[in-house]
């Protein structure tokens, strides 16, 4: 009998109605609320603004230092997921976290202040610090992993966690992703001319680039037998996961979507489902010319004519691109679409691109029977990750 893996808890802090819980996040997402506005850099004093999806921390009662934001968001979302799953007390819970830049604001601040030799600097700047910190604080004694695969990090964190359960290393893993807006990343993507000055318009003809965002999202994974034994609520099953390299270019995707096509095909094979079983695709959908075209081509190459019957949406149109958090955020969107039989929209969509000709659920969410949903992630370095969720 296969050791199936299920999701029993979810937690998220996103720019959309932050700190209000999963249901309010989902309602806002399905209403097509836009969390993006023009903002300054977090720390550096430069007279320029960019469209960004930032989390409004001022709604919290306590003041959170910019340098502590990364840890605060991580803990908030982790707590929400653990509480949702009711998983306290199990002694071998593992932790798998995806992050691209880690606590980068702490590093920036120390470099700006010239205090990098201060005690504790090296440890807190390390990308692996967050997983050790959370494991110690929450007594998570199972496998402890940090994964950093650019914008696929969150999806890989879930996939690796699922494999740890399949291989019998533990019965419970918490997988998450977290990243925060930083001067470091905003200036870097700006130098690559990847940021839009307009709204983010995934798959639309007039798309001009991505909008950066931030957030933290966690899910609790369990072996099916463990979840059933303790009477847990099950949001869905992890049916398959694949990582693939484009082996093509350091910053741009393979123009024909070679790696993503292979990843989708392999994951569908692993899930042992038919192409027509797929009811929803949550796309990477960054709003850049090449990503959206590549993704459309990959979906069409895998699904053929069926591709035109599957709703595909980009939730980044509302949330921006939160790097390490994106994959887990979008996995949660897939699970909530299964739970609620509703598909969130791609907002800011008005002019159809003849080359991106699928059903992108433009502007308005849609009631739809979702039994199986796929989340696609792609990133710098030709990373491609695909994960499939099925109803419980």
């Amino acid at each position, binding site marked *: 009998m*296969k*050791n*199936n893996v299920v999701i029993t808890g979810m937690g998220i802090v996103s720019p959309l109605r932050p700190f209000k819980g999963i249901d309010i996040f989902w309602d806002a997402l399905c209403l097509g609320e836009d969390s993006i506005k023009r903002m300054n850099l977090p720390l*550096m004093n*430069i007279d320029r603004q960019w469209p960004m999806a930032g989390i409004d921390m001022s709604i919290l009662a306590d003041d959170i230092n910019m340098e502590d934001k990364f840890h605060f968001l991580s803990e908030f979302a982790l707590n929400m997921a653990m509480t949702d799953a009711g998983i306290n007390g199990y002694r071998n819970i593992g932790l798998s976290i995806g992050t*691209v*830049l*880690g606590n*980068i604001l702490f*590093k*920036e601040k120390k*470099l*700006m202040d010239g205090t990098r030799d201060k005690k504790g600097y*090296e440890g807190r700047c*390390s*990308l*692996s*610090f967050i997983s*050790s910190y959370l494991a110690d604080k929450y007594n998570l004694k199972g*496998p*402890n*992993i*940090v*994964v*950093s*695969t*650019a914008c696929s990090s969150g999806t*890989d964190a879930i996939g*690796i966690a699922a*494999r740890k359960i*399949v*291989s*019998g*290393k533990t019965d419970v893993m918490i997988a998450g992703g977290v990243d925060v807006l930083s*001067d*470091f990343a905003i*200036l*870097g*993507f*700006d*130098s*690559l001319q990847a940021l839009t000055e307009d709204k983010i318009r995934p798959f639309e003809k007039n798309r001009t680039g991505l909008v950066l965002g931030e957030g933290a999202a966690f899910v609790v994974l369990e072996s099916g037998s463990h979840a059933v034994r303790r009477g847990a609520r099950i949001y869905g099953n992890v*049916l*398959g*996961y*694949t*990582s*693939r*390299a484009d*082996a*093509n270019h*350091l910053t741009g995707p393979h123009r024909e979507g070679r*790696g993503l096509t*292979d990843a989708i095909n392999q994951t569908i094979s*692993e*899930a042992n489902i038919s192409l027509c079983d797929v009811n929803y695709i949550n796309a990477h959908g960054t709003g850049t010319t090449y990503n959206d075209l590549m993704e459309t081509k990959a979906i069409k190459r895998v699904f053929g004519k069926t591709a035109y019957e599957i709703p595909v949406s980009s939730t980044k149109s509302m949330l921006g691109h939160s790097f390490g958090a994106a994959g887990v955020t979008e996995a949660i969107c897939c699970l909530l679409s299964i739970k609620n039989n509703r598909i969130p929209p791609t907002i800011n969509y008005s002019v159809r691109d003849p080359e991106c000709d699928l059903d992108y659920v433009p502007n308005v969410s849609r009631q739809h029977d979702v039994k199986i949903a796929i989340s696609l992630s792609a990133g*710098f*370095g*030709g*990373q491609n990750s695909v994960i499939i969720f099925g109803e419980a």
Partner: protein
Amino acid sequence: MSIVVTGISKLTNAEAERIINKFITGIKPIRIVNALEQLTIAAVGSVLDNAGVAFPVGTSSIGIYIEIDDAIEDIKDEYFNNILNEGTMGVSPLLFPYTSPNALAAQVSIAFDIRGESITMPINHSCSNVIEYAAECVAGKYISSAIAGRIILNDRSSAVEGGKYVAEFFLLEKLDIAVKRGAKIYRHLKAETHENF
């Protein structure tokens, strides 16, 4: 299921350029920007050569699993200090992609045309996590073989060309496949058989 090690390499920056020159004609043309990248490509080429695996690979049968410690922070420091020193004029579009730890695995995948899994784990201690996970991926039949290893700070006070960083890599595969292709077996690893999803 028995997983075996059939290739080993261990290099410092001091040897990287000489090693790369040995197989430069067998890899895809690639612009090497920094020392960590050069070291990683040299070490992976060396482990493939040692294991008798031909390259460019051109399939998704091999995965690459890399651990990197705070060596990656040196690139971030350089990138951000340039900005602090020169303002927005100091932002380097060439250096920025290398601040993402997976850039090293990406350049390896491009150089050797390795299209399988690509996983980078920033870990601050031993590389047991990445070796264990790579072995699980082979045992779980997610891939046929795995290049697994790490890049770490060897001596912070040393110059880059003097061996500041060290890379060590292993090629892992199933015993029956290794035997079938007549590979030298360095070591057997414990790996539990399990069905995938």
